């Protein structure tokens, strides 16, 4: 930026010259590239994603086949990180588990963002009774006993499949984001560009999706990133208290929860350290990326 030739007009408006003008996205991307922490996190996260997608190339063991001759075994016998109490290979489960965690986090992020943009957008745009109704529904969902919902759906469907869990988390995790987007929209609804598009005859949906959402896109992307990390934590937390995906489906939370007995914690670090570390590193990386994006989208932030 320092090479830019800036001139300040009498009115105090800074006019930058000397370089072709850049789009806001381009400028955000450049600022993001300066953030070492965010770049390092992106690389590590990419490696974790590749690792879980390329799991069959990294291990010959299946994550769900039981080696009944070697149950609860330490590393060895072709099992790089040993086996769990059912004889399933822990290294394979750690690798394949990433698929489930990342899938749940990503799908639920999409579900929550879509629900929140529609409900929060409508509430913030219309205000009045529409806003009151949406906010009461949010209050209701904050108090919703979602553990009960998981148990009941898994009882009806006879198992907690990955998609049941995605559905339950997605349908109960949206009130916070909805409130946030509604707040952003309440601030925007009286701004000039919204008024201008109203006078140009644009309908509410066009104003919300073509004008208001793009203008808060930076904030939404940042919040969605933090949400992604939070949802991965939710999956693991649910698994730890026994409400995760039904075994033998491998997930990091499931591997961790199976290794949390007193004696396993004390004597089998190879069983609980890898999934705990993978969960922590993934969440940290996503949050650092979100932090980098927040600075990148903030026009007042100087590199």
């Amino acid at each position, binding site marked *: 930026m320092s090479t830019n030739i800036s001139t300040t007009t009498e009115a105090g408006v800074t006019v930058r010259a000397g370089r072709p003008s850049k789009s806001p996205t381009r400028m955000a991307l450049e600022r993001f590239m300066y953030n070492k922490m965010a770049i390092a996190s992106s690389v590590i996260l990419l490696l974790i994603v590749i690792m879980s997608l390329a799991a069959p190339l990294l291990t010959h063991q299946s994550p769900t086949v039981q080696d009944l001759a070697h149950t609860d075994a330490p590393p060895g016998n072709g099992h790089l990180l040993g086996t769990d109490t059912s004889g399933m290979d822990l290294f394979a489960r750690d690798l394949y588990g990433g698929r489930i965690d990342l899938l749940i986090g990503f799908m639920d992020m999409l579900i929550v963002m879509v629900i929140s943009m529609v409900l929060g957008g409508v509430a913030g745009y219309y205000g009045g009774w529409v806003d009151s109704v949406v906010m009461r529904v949010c*209050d*209701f969902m904050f*108090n919703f006993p979602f553990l009960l919902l998981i148990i009941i759906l898994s009882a*009806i469907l006879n198992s907690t499949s990955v998609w049941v869990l995605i559905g339950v988390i997605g349908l109960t995790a949206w009130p916070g984001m909805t409130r946030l987007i509604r707040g952003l929209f309440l601030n925007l609804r009286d701004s000039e560009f919204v008024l201008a598009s109203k006078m140009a005859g644009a309908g509410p949906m066009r104003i919300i999706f073509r004008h208001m959402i793009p203008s808060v896109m930076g904030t939404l992307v940042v919040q969605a990133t933090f949400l992604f990390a939070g949802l991965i934590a939710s999956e*693991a937390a649910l698994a*730890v*208290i026994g409400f995760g995906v039904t075994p033998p489906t491998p997930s990091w939370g499931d591997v961790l929860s199976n290794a949390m007995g*007193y004696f396993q914690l004390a004597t089998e670090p190879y069983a609980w350290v890898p999934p705990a570390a993978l*969960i922590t590193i993934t969440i940290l990386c996503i*949050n650092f990326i979100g932090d980098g994006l927040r600075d990148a989208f903030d026009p007042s932030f100087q590199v």
Partner: protein
Amino acid sequence: MGTYIARRLLGMIPMLFAITVATFLMMHAAPGNAIEAILNPAIKDPQQLQQQLLHANGLDLPLYQQYLNWIGNFLIGNWGFSFGQHTSVLSLIGPAIKNTLIMSILAEFFTLIIGIPLGLFQSRKPYSSFDYSTSTASFILFSVPSFIFAILLIYVFAIKLRIFPSQGSMGTGPGAGSLIDHIYHALLPAISIALVSLAFYSRQTRGAVLEVSRRDYVRTAYAKGLDEGSVFRKHVLRNAMIPLITFFGFDFGGLVAGSVILEGIFQYQGMGLLTITAVQQRDYPVIMATTVLFAVAILLGNLLADIAYAAADPRIRYN
């Protein structure tokens, strides 16, 4: 203010009604029932006994009738009898609330006593090396889920050093059940919660103080010759605390609800663990009771946040 509070309290009634109806319907939508869950299928003619017990407990009535019976009894303090734990719901709730309160008040204590001063120190010298290192540390603490801290604390303090219990809410032997004993057992779960939330508070405090320090009235206060200390105490601190007071109100709901996850990990006999067990056992009366208590606590916490907001900021009036 009085009418505002009264109106808000009345407004909770339809919300509680909706939540209890939804919970009630969900419980009964699940296949199987509480009696089936506790009966030994090997006994002679289990079907007949099941029918008898369902009838005796009023579980064969139409759903709306069951709901009306439940709400009528609930309002007069008859919260029912736990199917899973064979004792009255109230006798389960009492100790559970006490345990959860000990844990969450301890957690809240650590959070406020460390989080707010840390944020204040950071904001006094922003972008200094102290600020940079502690802000990065609190960002990391805030990102890591509390159950990871729980596992690490159990590993270090319960397994390796053997100075804290890894499970439970009270010990055995003399001194069991005393307040000290309760605090001793609540310490590790409380620290796991506090590590995450103190990071949240320090970030919010730092942000709020920096935000307020840029305001015109702070510049005015300096301009009229006030010294650093009184500007900070009278102008910056007071205004920066307004958002924090709101968060504290929201925390109130969490004090009663506790943390389901951490109580599960530490097998700490509070409201969270009671709920987990009840959900697993289809223990309808316990589920209804904990759901209502959680909802009341959260709704009261929201109200408290709004009242505290008005008390801290004279510009806000609700009438």
